[in-house]
């Protein structure tokens, strides 16, 4: 067993786990943050995407011990003061989710896209979110939501 100390959504956590424990499992089981989903456990579907020291990363192909000392943000950290993040609002407005299983990874990935490219065109949005698989929406609503949220995030900066 090893000790892992990390900061998630602005809150300090400490946990003990086996060195082989996946970060995704640690987040879900040890920290109880079940918003981060696991869809493939081999780094393709993107459902498990979180912010790792400010950049999008797949928590299913990292070990919890690798996150020792790191700052993470999961989908649970998006809301501020009881209000939805503008990207969450846009997802709701544009029907960017159906079952919602890919949604946590999709939100974090879209946030990462808008961080690196604040005003993407549609092709760039599609490319950016192609890191996450969604089987419900056909992606159109997601593209619309990210396009709509981009100027709001820029204005809020």
């Amino acid at each position, binding site marked *: 067993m090893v000790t892992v100390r990390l900061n998630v959504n602005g809150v300090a956590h400490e946990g003990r786990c086996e060195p082989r424990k996946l970060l995704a499992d640690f987040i879900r089981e040890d920290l109880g943050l079940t918003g981060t989903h696991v*869809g493939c456990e081999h780094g393709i579907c993107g459902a498990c995407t979180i912010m790792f020291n400010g950049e999008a990363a797949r928590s299913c192909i990292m070990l919890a011990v690798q996150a020792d000392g790191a700052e993470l943000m999961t989908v649970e950290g998006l809301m501020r003061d009881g209000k939805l993040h503008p990207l969450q609002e846009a997802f709701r407005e544009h029907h960017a*989710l159906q079952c*919602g299983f890919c949604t946590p990874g999709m939100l974090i990935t879209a946030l990462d896209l808008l961080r690196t490219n604040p005003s993407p065109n549609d092709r760039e949005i599609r490319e950016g979110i192609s890191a996450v698989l969604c089987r419900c929406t*056909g992606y159109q609503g997601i*593209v619309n939501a990210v396009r709509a949220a981009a100027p709001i995030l820029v204005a809020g900066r």
Partner: protein
Amino acid sequence: MEGTGLGWIGKSVKRVEDARLLTGRGTFIDDHPPVANACHAAIVRSPLAHAKIRGYELSAALALPGVVGAITGEDVARHTKPFSVGVTAPIHYYCAATDRVRFVGEPVAVVVAKNRYIAEDAADLVQVDYEPLPVVVDPERALDADAPVLHEAVGSNLAGNRRLVYGDPDRAFRDADVVVNERFTFPKYASTPIETYGVIARWDLLDGVCTVWSNFMGPFIMHPLTARVLGLPENRLRFIVPADIGGSFGIKSSIYPYIALIALAAKRLGVPVKWIEDRREHLLASSSGTDRVAYREVAARQDGTILGMRFKWLDNVGGYIRSPEPGCSFRPTGNFVGPYRFQHLEVDASVVMTNKSLTGPNRGYACGHLYFETEGMMDRLADRLGLDPVEVRRKNLIQPDQFPYRTPSGGLYDSGDYPAAFDRALELAGYDELRREQATARAAGRYVGIGLALAVDPSVSNMGYVATALDPQFRAKPEYLAKSGAVDSATIKIDPLGRVIAILGTTPQGQGHQTVVSQIVADELGLVPQDVTVVDEMDTFTRVWSISSGTYSSRFGSVGTSAVALAARKLTAKLVDYAAHLMELPAPSLEFRDGAVRLRDGKGPSYSIKDLAGRAHWNTESLPEGMEPGLQATAVFGFTVAKAVDAEDRVNSSNTYGFIAEVMAVEVDPETAAIKILRYVTVHDAGTIINPMIAEGQIYGGALHGLGGALYEELAYDENGQLLTGTFMDYLVPTASEAPQIEIAHVVSPSPLTPLGSKGLGESSSMTVPAVIANAVSDALAPLGIRINELPMTPSKLWKAIDQAQRTPTGVSAPLASGALQPRRGVSEPRESRALRPRAGVSEPRASFSGHPRSDPTSRTSLQ
């Protein structure tokens, strides 16, 4: 969206589900352990496609610290029964292999440990002694006399065969001016929901109740089947489905063998057991549609009138036939003829077993196959007769004055105006202009093609269709029990302040039932959707349900919404009676309108729903004599047109029937074989649309499923029965970059069979996209003599075909073919044409939602 209190149906109300799903607070099966101290299961699976099991060696696994125990096929054979199957052949399908494995990934043992990591370690330590057997994966090869036989008791790999004859097909073929033949193959693919299967089972040995939580979507016929397998009375087996399911698309209807397996492990080992499937397991051994070999023949007159068709199908169901198969062949029985009028049809359907994984419903269940073939034949017929593919289709369409239309195979199409919907699609796509631009493009050596696809979209399966698989003589036996039905229920309660709780027994997987129900109840009771709380967690102990319950075959938009509307109407009728008593007026002089009981002539006092609810709950003395206290109502809605299959094999296999018309334009790059979608128009008629935003979401998603199957996705096997596409690296799911822009429009022919006029829409374009894109690519490559009769059209397959055609010119349009041999640059982005440019245009068709009639479901057809 402004709350007038009425007219919520037809509005794109934002979803109530979203708040929890956007913030990571969903309740998926793996999120909230419903029982303390659940142990975790790992399933040991066969590495071989076909082998005898000689024995198991568990000692190393059981010795691992943290392991609770294990069960093997021996326990399964001893303590469970095989599942009933949909054919009469002696096929023993248990929840795990007992003496023989018949596909790679078949469960052979379950190891349970205190956590998943240890369980997986222990599963690796289980030794199974196999004696390999010869393997067969191809359905045609499987029927050869010398093919390895999977089930010795059956004696061959044929699970069943039916020859269904409607009308006089032989005469139709004798009388024909032309007969066109083609062989098609359709791939084995699966909609691979991003959330995998999950089962949690707890066995209470004292009261004998087994409780299972799972992301099972129904049909709940599988509940009694599973109870029988486990040797339990049905009222001792409790299925609970959490509120959130991470997608399904038919695939999660096939969890039930795992429910039995995990329940058995929980019973034998005396602990609650949790199993969450991983992606590799899902691709190996969950479920998929069948791969099919089809031989098609169409008989027609010179003018394009179709006289009859012949279908010969070999559906590959894998190592066993698992219910509801052979729905792969028979689910579309009533709509075999699609939207066309011909009366003579022969269907020769063989269901074949091979050493591949098992099959079941996959979005569009069997209809993607059906329309890929039929619509391909329509184009081949047009080509043979030198007619435009539009004309051939128009000539044969069922006409608006023929509804309700009885098909030769027993379907009862409830409403529609197919020519108008088809025209709408052609007009939206600018078909004539597309053709002109295609001619210009072709002259320039470009491979531009236009495809069409028309389909009848069946929703709400009638359970009775499954019996079409059985011989009429078998069904005529006195001991045979006929089957029919399509039923759903809803309960609505009004609280003392006049707000509402609606309780459903459905299992939504992203379809937004809570939102849709809040709209319907708001309209019926004159409230706003926010006043309605919708509870939607299926529990077989507490919900009112039927064996056809579940969220599959696009049921909810049709049968589920009907139950909700009827429950609300029961309540408004009661409120009118109560108010009549309070007002000392005859009930017929009153009506429930805009949230209150009012005088029909509009004058005088009224009682609001809030006022009545308060009085009724707080002062039961105020109720009229004989009135049952409380304000709650349960309605069970069942289609009366869902009848058992008749002696002539005719069956109304679904209950409401929508329509889809699609036009797609593509360009194929002959150097890379890349297919670029230039335009894609889809027009749907699903009757009354309750929430256009949700309806369009279903269309976008369905279309991408169809596109995946047409271009990318295949559960491919080698000749040893090893799966070649066992990860998302090899099994290619379309990403946002592959998703096309879609132009959507609706026409509305309300169903006369449902209180709201609605029909299902959930499978939508998943069933037409394989057809429309295959036809478009065939049209693009017509100058090379290439016709698509096999999916998926992977770049490598298509490139080979193009390369071969270019080496050996077929003589079709030779000048263009040779022109295509020239290296081309910069033509993949067509700029010169407006119509051929990809467009982002959903804005225009959206207008067609406005003001459709909803209150008059009997008005047969009303087009925008």
